[in-house]
């Protein structure tokens, strides 16, 4: 029976890890998309300095959290998003609104794709 308990503990650890990953990734993905929308809004209204600081906040937050993201996700996905956020910051500094919006859309698409893959749906399971 001891082995039965070991098996149940292993299943519990796996479920806890899965739950932590799901909550961490989905909640942060939503927050990033919201921040990107906010930055888009600012650059659309030609608020360059505000957009620049929004892009800076995004980039800093992502760099801080990248360690934990790397535990849960493919590192190449993280690199793509990291590059997009660095580009956003640069476009905001140069006031290139069109490039900013395009890169932001690309980053949002990547983040949402990662988020969607973590959701327990039939299409993801199969």
């Amino acid at each position, binding site marked *: 029976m001891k082995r039965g308990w070991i098996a*149940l503990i292993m299943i519990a650890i*796996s479920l806890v890890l899965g739950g932590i990953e799901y909550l961490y990734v989905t909640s942060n993905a939503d927050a990033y998309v919201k921040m990107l929308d906010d930055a888009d809004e600012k650059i659309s209204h030609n608020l360059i300095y505000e957009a620049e600081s929004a892009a800076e906040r995004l980039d800093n937050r992502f760099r801080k959290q990248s360690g934990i993201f790397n*535990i849960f996700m493919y*590192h190449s996905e993280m690199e793509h998003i990291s590059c997009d956020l660095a580009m956003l910051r640069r476009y905001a500094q140069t006031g290139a609104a069109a490039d900013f919006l395009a890169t932001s859309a690309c980053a949002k698409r990547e983040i949402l794709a990662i988020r969607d893959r973590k959701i327990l749906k039939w299409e993801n399971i199969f």
Partner: protein
Amino acid sequence: MLTILVRTVLIYIIVTAAVRIMGKRQVSDMQTSELVITLIISEVASLPLENAERPLLNSLVPIMMIAAIELLVSLLMMKSRRARSLICGHPIVIIRNGKMIDSQLRLLRISREDVYSLLREQEISDESDVQYGIIEPNGTLSILTAENIGSNGIQSQELKEELEKVDKEENA
């Protein structure tokens, strides 16, 4: 490279622990399901070593889950004969009282020549020397002669039921 080195050590520890928890068996004694699980674990364990981009957790969690499910299934098989029969199969009598049972051979898709070959491996040249020839769930052939059955007869309930089934089929 250092990452891969550390990962290798971690994977080694986890896989060894998983195999240790699942129990001690030689490859030749494994049930089909155990062999498949061992192959899956080895495949999953190799993925983060081949690809450093892949998170280690993506392999560790499946290994833990597979080992845990295997443990639970083995406990279930210990408790329930029906579950054991469903998952591992049951012994099939192919020789009875020195005669091969063709219907059972067809069921197992093995020829008489294959059986002769298995008998030769056990240093038996003539099927008539065999009281019972049984294909075990792990695919090996067990031979029972009149001498090694003993006075108490066959103890295994599973095998007794199988022999009764063969008797019924023969009489029908």
